[in-house]
Each structure stands twice: as C-alpha cells, then as structure tokens.
C-alpha cells in the first residue's frame, strides 16, 4: 500500500562549495519534485540545508530518488538525506 500524500524533507550537510543548491534543484526539477520551502544555515563551518518538497508527482518512487540524491551528494562531497516529514512532525509536535 503506497502512501497518498505527505511531504518529504531533504537535508544536505557538508563542506560549503559553489553549486550545491543548483545541483540538487536540477535533479529535483528533472524528476518533477516540487520544492515548497528551503532554509539554510552554516553551523561550525558546515553547510546545512533543509528543503521541504512534494514528491507526489515525482517521476520515480521514493526509494530511487533517495538513492539518486545520496549518490549525487557523494559526487559533490556532501551528505544528502531524504526522509518523510512525519518523523519530524511526530517528534517535535504534539
């Protein structure tokens, strides 16, 4: 049984370098993944970005996108993680 709707959180953590956001966004655009919100910050010299995206119309299943992004992260030297939003909602909201 596939889930119906829900947002996905993409986190990117690593050494700051030119084009991280561009590369991630290009992948998302190519795969019909809609970006709803982006926030980023630098913590102790590390680039931290969080994107809230809607993957309902995505060209590939969740697992494939997650693996692709992980690979993309390895290529640009950062760690990219895809997680369904509920884990954060459950933990931080009553």
């Amino acid at each position, binding site marked *: 049984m596939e889930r119906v709707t829900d947002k996905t959180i993409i*986190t990117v953590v690593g050494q700051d370098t030119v084009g991280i956001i561009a590369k991630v966004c290009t992948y998302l655009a190519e795969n019909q993944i809609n970006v709803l919100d982006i*926030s980023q*910050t630098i913590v102790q010299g590390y680039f931290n970005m*969080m994107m809230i995206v809607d993957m309902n119309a995505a060209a590939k299943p969740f697992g494939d996108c*997650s693996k692709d992004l992980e690979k993309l992260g390895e290529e640009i030297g950062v760690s990219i993680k895809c*997680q369904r939003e509920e884990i954060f909602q459950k933990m*931080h909201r009553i």
Partner: protein
Amino acid sequence: MINIWEVKETNTMIEQENLDVRTITLGISLLDCIDSDLEQLNKNIYNKITTVAKDLVAVGEKIENEFAIPIVNKRISVTPIALVGGAACKTLEDFATIADTLDAAAKAVGVNLIGGYSALVSKGMTKADELLIRSIPTALCRTERVCSSVNLASTKTGINMDAVRLMGEILLEVAEQSKDRDSVDCMKLVVFCNAPDDNPFMAGAFHGVTEADAVINVGVSGPGVVKTALEKVRGESFEVLCETIKKTAFKVTRVGQLVAQEASRMLNIPFGIIDLSLAPTPAIGDSVADILCEIGLEYAGAPGTTAALAMLNDQVKKGGVMASSYVGGLSGAFIPVSEDQGMIDSVQAGAITLEKLEAMTCVCSVGLDMIAIPGDTKATTISGIIADEMALGMVNQKTTAARLIPVIGKDVGDTVEFGGLFGYAPIMPVNKFSCDDFINRKGRIPAPIHSFKN
C-alpha cells in the same frame, strides 16, 4: 512548519546518538494450527508463519528507508508452544520438531529470532508444559533462531518452586550442550515472573493467549539520546534532570509510535503496543550504565545506583506514556550486563555485584539479564537466584526475569564473547553458600496477601 533545527536535532539523534527502533515484533497466534497429528501441526505452523510474516522484513526495510531510522531487528513471537503442541507431542523429540519448524519458518521469512518456545507454569505444570521444558536443551542447541521462555511465577499465583527447581537443572543442561561455544545457547532462554503477553523483546517474547490473531509490537531504544541530553544539564536540580529525561523519552517513543503505525498500516495487521524501553547495545554511547554515570555515579553499582535507576525508569515511562497510544511489554530501562559497555566496565572495576543487580531489578524493567556466572555453579544455586528474582516480581507486582549464563569451563576472572549485539561479559562471582534444602522442598510458594484484591 518543521524548522531546520528540529530536523537537525532528530538527525543528530539518529546519526550520532544511536537512536533506533530496536525491534518490530510480529506476534502470531498459532492456536488455529493445533492438530493431534504432529506432522500436520508442523505443517500448519510453518504455513501460518510464512504467510502472515512474509512481508515483515521488506516492510521494515521500507520504513527504515523512508524515515532514515534504523530498525535493528525484525522478529516474530508465537503462542507458547506448550499450548500449541500439547495435543500432538508425546516425547521430548516431538516438541523439538516444532522448534525445528519455527527455526525453518524464521529463516524463510528472514527474521533473526523467533520467540515462543515457551510454557506458562506459574501455578502448575501440565504434562505438555513439563515435556516442553525438558525439551528446551535439545531444542535450543539444534536450532539457531528459536528463543525460549518459561513463566515460573506471578503475583496472582505465587511461585511454582517445582518449576524453579527444574529450570536450574535445565539451564545447566543447555550450558553443557553448548559448552564448546561458551554456553551461548543460554542467552536464548529466560525465566519470568509476571511475563507480559505482548513483550516484543527477545529472548522473552511470546504471543499471549489474550492477544488477537496477529499483532505488531514495537520496542524503542535510545540510551545514547538520553545520555547526550543529560550532558547539557550537569549540576542542575532533580527537577531539571527529570524534565529532561521525560522530554527525551517522549521524542524517542514518538518515533517508535510512528514506526509501529506505519508497519501496522503496510502489513494490514493491528498495532498492539509500544514497549517504552531504554535498551542498550555494546556500541559506545548506547549504554544505560553511562546514563547512571551522567546522573552522578562514578560507576553503575555505586551507592545511589538504585535510586538513580528508579528515577530514570519512572521518567522514561512518564515521558513515553504520552507519546504512545498503547504502552505495554516490559517498558523500562534494561540493565543487561553483556550488552552494555558501561555495565561491563562496572563489573570489571568491581563496582557492581550480582546482589546489587538484584536490587536494581526491583526498580526497573526486567531483571538479571545476560549475566555470565561460573560454569560449576550448582543447579540449586541457580534455582535459588531465580527464586529470589521471582519473589521480587511477585511481591512488587512487576515483571522480573532471569537470563543467566553458566559458562561451562570458565570461572570468575574469565570473559565470555557472545558476538554482535550480545557483546561480551566478565564472569561474575556467585554466593557460594548452599540453598539445597530450600530448593529441594516440593510445591509452590503461595501468592502474597496483597494479590487478593477482589
């Protein structure tokens, strides 16, 4: 909307503080498999388990991927086999064939352990119960994934001392049969007082007769997360300390609740309970003993340990209860010796004894867990230790258990390796004085006065 700091906090818990879901345990009733023909019974059991649990591991992995939360174990618990096999099994070997079937079914669906090779004998043993208990050494030694448990006592019924005496002998037999492997098969055997019907943790998991046909129970963990949270409140009052533990336990348990609901939805099997537990592993930073040290003890076992553990256990429950719609199982802090690096350090430093561990089991979940003792310990002495632990559970109206490992050929000063998540354990000294005449009395210890509540 969720913010970047909240996301970062959750992911730090997972990546650096060993937050995980310890187990998704699928409970399966085997009552409808019962047949007086042994071959048919074994066939029914295999078919039911492999049908109901066929997607368990795949679903567990899918949830792991979608939330990026590790789910360490996927397991199965079944109806106590003494009940299921009673009509068909006339010999020890008959019962052992059911263990073979459980082992084969576990392998077929890819779960690492299957619990329920069990008997519930808190008041008396049927012929089938006794046969099953006597078959435990054979069953455990020739299977890989089968776990066994025996409920020897309860607050309502008292302590079945005949079964306590028998289990001392059985445990030594299990140890003897696996002596070439440091008696490791003993870690697949646990005895209980007030065993819960819905415990997801091994070796004591079984699917009680009060349960539905199939049910999902989830055990959460997270000693590392609690330890890290407490590092930030060093020197603060008990009020601050307790609030911090509660909030952390809430967060950890909510993840378990989410995983349980998702597993239940994907498998189309009802959600049973969340077991609110602090279950350690030998990984550095995943230790309950380290939390006790963070609270202010030099080593677990120092004076004050019981009070600190009582507080910890209570706050974990208070935080966790609100995070979950149904709570059950063992629920509390586990204090296994071998599976917790901090506890191992305590034993090696001489800070903790078997007697102190016994006191600690009065105020936390479970009991004397994963404790290696000298292989030449007498059966009656083992029964005596078990009886003490049963009495604590009976009088305090709580679950207690004993999972002792008499390591044949080893003595105090030696260490035994169990491998993987089970860790290693220094052999602990046992009180040498005799309890033979006590254990050799026949019958049972009556239920305590406060059990008569009607």
